[in-house]
């Protein structure tokens, strides 16, 4: 019977193809949306998992790059109970590197929207204070996957920098080779020596040029008595939420973001995104099911005589129901496969254009979900037409054809 059902689909190729398009497009949409959400989740999750502690920045700014705080705040924080280490930082968007300004960089990178994430940043660190941190991201990334050395006290005031492997590739030397240890990199109009290369694997972090805080101030024209942000570690790991509450209370206008909080915020944001996704999915489902019902109704209506003939040959109502539902489930299966293939192709192409930032992810379980969703849609959409075909009185079904 399966073969028969299959053939019934194939003998009406145009209708089947149209129905396939109608069904696979919603499936494609669902897959696309989920791959974006997966991609965001991966990107941010990977970044967050490398950072702990509390980031102090000005209230209502999106990131340290846009934040300024008085340098004296660091001393205030050191006096708070429960604080283990306080490390001031200066952040800014790198001015032109190797003669390529921000605008030129954006145009040169063929990666379209990816350049938003690709923008190199300068992080100036109070080296002495950072050496006290347990959870500093870049030194660890250098030790685990990088080479060279991280900044030490002897780099204070010196034009020495630590960059990511990615930056070393993006700003290759004139021969096209990635920058190596000991090479220099021209930022604005001065040369800086690369003493270390790190690699975090996070696309949000691998754009940072790390240098001494005083060096950064002069590159970024940052005022002597101000800083962008402060990275604070608590004495005990459980105390971060309490610590950030205390800091915010003592310093109005300051935002203390514990990574737990960021994770929670991101989690609830993604929760909202998922709700939106589920609504879109339901809409897509309805569209798909209506399409299937329409196709199958058309197909069964013109086959009433056939069903009558099958009934006269002893087919039961259940047999007819099974036949039509099978046809429609096959249609769903085909549409699911087509939708998934399109989604795979689509995300592969899309990832070429946005590789600087989010990586759209379609994993096997998402594929499985897409295909089963489509089969379920096919089956559900086939039930009503199948029921209608099965319920025909065989004699009347045949009369429709013969009179």
């Amino acid at each position: 019977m399966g073969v028969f059902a299959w053939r019934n689909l194939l003998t009406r190729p145009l209708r089947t193809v149209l129905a396939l398009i109608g069904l696979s497009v919603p499936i494609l949409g669902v897959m696309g949306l989920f791959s974006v959400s997966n991609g965001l989740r991966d990107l941010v999750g990977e970044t967050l998992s490398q950072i702990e502690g509390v980031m102090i920045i000005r209230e209502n700014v999106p990131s340290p790059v846009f934040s300024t705080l008085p340098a004296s705040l660091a001393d205030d924080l050191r006096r708070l109970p429960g604080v283990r280490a306080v490390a001031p930082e200066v952040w800014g968007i790198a001015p032109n590197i190797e003669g390529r300004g921000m605008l030129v960089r954006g145009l040169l990178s063929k990666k379209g929207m990816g350049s938003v994430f690709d923008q190199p940043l300068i992080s100036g660190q109070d080296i002495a204070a950072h050496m006290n941190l347990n959870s500093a991201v870049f030194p660890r990334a250098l030790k685990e996957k990088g080479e060279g050395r991280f900044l030490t006290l002897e780099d204070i005031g010196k034009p020495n920098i630590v960059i990511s492997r990615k930056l070393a590739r993006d700003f290759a030397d004139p021969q096209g080779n990635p920058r190596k240890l000991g090479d220099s990199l021209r930022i604005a109009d001065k040369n800086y020596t690369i003493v270390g290369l790190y690699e975090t694997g996070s696309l949000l972090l691998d754009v940072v040029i790390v240098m001494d805080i005083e060096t950064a101030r002069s590159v970024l024209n940052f005022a002597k008595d101000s800083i962008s942000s402060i990275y604070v570690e608590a004495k005990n790991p459980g105390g971060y939420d309490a610590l950030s509450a205390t800091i915010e209370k003592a310093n109005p206008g300051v935002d203390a973001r514990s990574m737990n909080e960021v994770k929670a915020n991101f989690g609830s944001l993604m929760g909202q995104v998922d709700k939106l996704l589920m609504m879109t999915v339901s809409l897509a489902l309805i569209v798909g099911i209506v399409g299937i019902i329409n196709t199958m109704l058309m197909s069964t209506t013109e086959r009433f005589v056939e069903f009558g003939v099958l009934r006269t040959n002893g087919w039961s109502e259940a047999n007819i129901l099974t036949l039509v539902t099978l046809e429609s489930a096959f249609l769903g299966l085909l549409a699911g496969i087509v939708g998934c293939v399109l989604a795979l192709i689509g995300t592969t192409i899309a990832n070429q254009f946005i590789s600087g930032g989010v990586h759209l992810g379609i994993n096997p379980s998402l594929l499985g979900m897409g295909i089963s969703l489509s089969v379920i849609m096919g089956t559900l959409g086939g039930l009503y037409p199948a029921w209608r075909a099965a319920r025909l009185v065989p004699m009347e079904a045949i009369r429709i054809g013969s009179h």
Partner: protein
Amino acid sequence: MIEVVNVWKSYRSGIRWVEALRGINCRIERGRFAFIVGPSGSGKSTLLYLLGALDQPSNGEILVNGQNLVTMSEAMQNLYRREQVGFIFQSFNLISNLSALENVLVPFLPRGITADQRARAGELLKQVGLEDRLDHHPYQLSGGEQQRVAIARALIKQPLLVLADEPTGELDSKTGDEIYKILRSMQHTYQTTLVIVTHDRRFITPDDLVLEIQDGQVALESGAIADGSSWPNGSKAEGSAGSNGEDSPGRGVSLKAGE
């Protein structure tokens, strides 16, 4: 072995009811070659389909081989149709997506086809002269060939009863002759009962049972009418006049006033 007792059948047609059968009584012995004749609209097809349990009468009893079709369960009706009755239609009604061989096997398709059944289907197609057309689809076959496939489909279940509604209605007379030749030889071979609705009396032979239907009732029953051109007067005077063919405006037509 077929016994029809006071069977009524009415259809709703809009707000009116059409009485297609109005108290039919008849008996058809096992192994007979029986014809149902009568004017268009007189209820011939309706009676035939009721014999095949394709619909239920409004009233009355139909017994086939001791089984009461009226009180039979849905499942038993399916079984009855699958195993005991073969149908042959005027418009052949083959399934277009299936080959000749698969069409013959249609009754067994839902339960899976055995090698034995497949061999029997091939054998039947050979008997109707289609041994080299097994893989052909209906659109590749002429009308007469399609009807021969339909005959094989009716016979594969080795039925007690074969019901045919105007089996030559869409065929030219030469092909019609061939079909009747096959039907008669098959009936001889398999000893099945055949009930054929027709308005073409050419094919009736003296040994056949003929039920003349008019007005939803049996007007004349005869086991020995050889000549289709006219009915012998006197034997059953009631329904004999003006009843020879579809075109004659007999009482069967006046019945349709209700439509």
